[in-house]
C-alpha cells in the first residue's frame, strides 16, 4: 500500500470515529473525498504545518464544508492540529465545528453554504497572479453544489482571466441530499459543459491515487483546470457505499466496529 493510500485509510478511520462520537452527519460525503485529500496533502500540495500562513503554501479550500471531518482528520495526520483535538469534534464550543472552520489551524476558509468556495478560490488565484506568485489554489466541490450559479459565474471569470493556477476538483459521487443528481438537476453532459465554459477538464476515477496525482499535477498553459472525479459516496465502507442515508446517519457502535474492521482489512 502506498503512502497516500495509508494516509487515506487513516483519514477514513479518524473520520468514522469522529462522526460516531459526535453523532454527526455527512460521513458519506467525507469518505467520498478522502482519496483526493490524501493525494493533495500526501503528494501534491506544498504546505508548512508549522506556519499556516507560509506565503509559498498552496491554498486548499473545501467548498463542500459539510465533509469537514475528512479535512480535519487530514490536518491532524499531516501535523496542523494535534490528533487529540479530533476528539472534540462536534462538542460545544469546539473549534472543529460541523462545517469547516477557518478558526482551525490549516483551514483557509469557512464554508457550509454551498457555492462559496470557488469564487473565493478565484480571488486567491487572482491575488497570486496579480503579485506574480507561483503557489496554486485548489478548491474541492461537491457535485450537488454545481446547482449553485455562483460556481458557473466563477468558472466564467476564471476562464476569462486564464487563471491557470486554479484547480477545481468536483466530487462526482452522483448523489445529492435527498436523491440522485440525475433525478434532481441533471449535470450531464457535465464534462462538455465545463469544457464549453473554457476549462481544461480531466475526467478521472476519483479513488485512483495515481490518476488523481496525474490530474492534479498537470497545469494548462491557458485555462483553469477542473477535475471531474468520479467517486463513490461512502467509499471504503461496504454498507455505506452509494447509500443516500449515510449523508445523514452516523454509525452505531456495532457499525463503527464493522467499518473499522473493513478498513483494517484493506490496510493489511
Amino acid at each position, binding site marked *: 500500500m502506498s503512502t497516500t493510500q495509508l494516509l487515506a485509510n487513516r483519514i477514513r478511520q479518524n473520520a468514522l470515529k469522529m462522526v460516531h462520537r459526535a453523532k454527526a452527519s455527512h460521513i458519506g460525503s467525507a469518505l467520498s473525498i478522502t482519496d483526493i485529500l490524501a493525494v493533495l496533502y500526501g503528494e501534491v500540495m506544498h504546505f508548512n504545518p508549522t506556519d499556516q500562513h507560509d506565503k509559498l503554501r498552496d491554498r486548499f479550500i473545501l467548498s463542500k464544508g459539510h465533509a469537514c471531518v475528512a479535512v480535519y482528520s487530514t490536518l491532524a495526520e499531516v501535523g496542523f492540529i494535534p490528533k487529540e483535538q479530533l476528539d472534540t469534534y462536534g462538542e460545544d464550543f469546539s473549534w472543529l465545528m460541523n462545517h469547516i472552520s477557518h478558526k482551525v489551524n490549516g483551514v483557509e476558509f*469557512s*464554508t457550509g453554504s454551498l457555492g462559496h468556495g470557488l469564487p*473565493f478560490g478565484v*480571488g486567491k488565484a487572482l491575488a*497570486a497572479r496579480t503579485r506574480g506568485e507561483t503557489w496554486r489554489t485548489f478548491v474541492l466541490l461537491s457535485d450537488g453544489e454545481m446547482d449553485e450559479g455562483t460556481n458557473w459565474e466563477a468558472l466564467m471569470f476564471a476562464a476569462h*482571466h486564464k487563471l491557470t493556477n486554479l484547480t477545481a476538483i468536483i466530487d462526482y459521487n452522483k448523489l445529492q441530499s435527498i436523491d440522485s443528481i440525475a433525478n434532481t438537476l441533471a449535470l450531464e453532459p457535465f464534462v462538455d459543459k465545463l469544457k464549453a465554459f473554457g476549462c481544461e477538464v480531466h475526467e478521472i476515477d476519483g479513488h485512483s491515487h495515481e490518476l488523481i496525482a496525474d490530474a492534479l499535477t498537470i497545469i494548462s498553459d491557458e485555462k483553469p483546470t477542473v477535475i471531474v472525479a468520479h467517486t463513490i459516496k461512502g467509499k471504503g465502507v461496504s454498507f455505506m457505499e452509494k447509500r443516500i442515508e449515510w449523508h445523514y446517519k452516523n454509525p452505531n457502535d456495532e457499525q463503527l466496529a464493522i467499518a473499522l474492521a473493513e478498513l483494517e482489512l484493506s490496510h493489511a
Partner: protein
Amino acid sequence: MRSAFINELVAAAEINENIVLVVGDLGFGVIEPFAKRFPKRFFNAGVAEQNMMGLAAGLASEGFHVFVYSIANFPTFRCAEQIRNDVDYHNLPVTVVAVGGGMAYGNLGYSHHAVQDYALIRTMPNMLIAAPGDPMEVIACMRYLISNPQPSYLRIGKAGEPCIHAEIPEVSPGKWLTIREGYKGGVSYLTTGATLDLVHQLLNQRPDLKSYSLNSMPLWSMKTKAVQSQQVEKFEGVITVEDHLMDGGFGSWLLESITIRPELLARIKIKSLNAKVCGMVAKQSTMNMQGGLTVEFLCA
C-alpha cells in the same frame, strides 16, 4: 460624491499597492481614472455579483484591500450571503461601495432603490457603515477606511452634491460631527448619508429653527452602539433623518443603542422614508417628499 470617491481611491492606490477595485459591470464615466492608472488592480467581474463579492473576499484574504463598486442593491442584497459569510465572518478588508444610496436613482424603479441597505448591513457584527453626507465626508470616510481596512459598506449618492463642510472633517466610528451648534442642550438633528444636505437646507431656510443643532454621523456600526447614549444625553431632543425605511434603519439603530439608558428613549424622534415609497417611481427629490422627508414633516 462619486468623483470624491474615485479621486481618493486613485490617490490612495498611488501609495498603497494593496488597493484593488472590482466592479460589477457598472461605473462608466466614474471608474476610468483608476482602471487606466492601475489596470492590473482593476477587475470588472461582469454582471455576476455573488462571484464578484466572493472573489473580493478571496483577494482580501491575501492582503488586498478590495473596493467593490456597484449600484444600490447589486453589491448588497444580490450578494448578501457573500458579505455575511465570506467578508464579515472572516473579517476581511472588503469595502462594499454602493452608489445611488436612498432614492438617488429614483426614476430607475424599485430595483434601484437602496432604502433597506442599512437594515441588511448593520446586522453583520464586523461591518462598518460609512454613509457620508457630502463630498467632504466622502473624503474623510475614504481616508479612514484606507487607514483602517476592515469589512465595510460605503454608501454614496451620485454626482453634484454640495459641500456642507468647509473642510475635510475628522471622522471616527460612532462619533457625531457638529455641523451647526444651536441652543446648547436643545434639540439636534442627526443625519447619516445624503439627508445631511436636506436638513442643512431646511435649517438655512427656516430662521425659526435657529436654536436647532445639526450633527451628522457618517461612520456607525453594531460595535459603536455603546457610545451613543453619552452623545444623546447632551440634547433634550435628537431628530434622526435618513433616506431609508424606519425598519432596520439608522434611527432604529440609535434607539436600540440607548436602550441601556431608557430615560433617554423619549428624546429620540425618527424621520425616515414611509414604506409607501416602495414601488413608487419618481426623481429623488419627489421620492423623498413622497416618503415624508418634507419641511413640514421634518419640523414636526
